[in-house]
């Protein structure tokens, strides 16, 4: 049973790896949205002056 501790941890970390990739994609999406939206605002308000 004690030998399985390593494999349990390994499996957990393997799943954690996938989850961390997923969250990274989510965060990138939020940053991209901010870039796009702020770009729009800059264009919109830049042309007025």
């Amino acid at each position, binding site marked *: 049973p004690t030998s399985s501790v390593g494999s*349990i941890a390994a499996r957990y970390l393997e799943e954690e790896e996938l*989850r961390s990739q997923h969250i990274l994609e989510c965060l990138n999406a939020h940053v991209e949205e901010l870039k796009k939206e702020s770009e729009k*605002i800059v264009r919109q308000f830049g042309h007025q002056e």
Partner: protein
Amino acid sequence: SDSVKGLEEMRAQYIKAVSKIKCDMLCYIRESKERAAEIIKVEILRERQETARKMHKYYLTC
């Protein structure tokens, strides 16, 4: 004025993005903890049953 309106929109977008990032991170951390807790719970239960089985076997053979 228009520039103030633009600044306010920028501010709103910025706050929105940061809030989403915070929300996602909180969710991620919570799920990580829950997963770890669940694994520990299951393993302790399994170990407990294994010990009970060994004890039972031990007392039967004595």
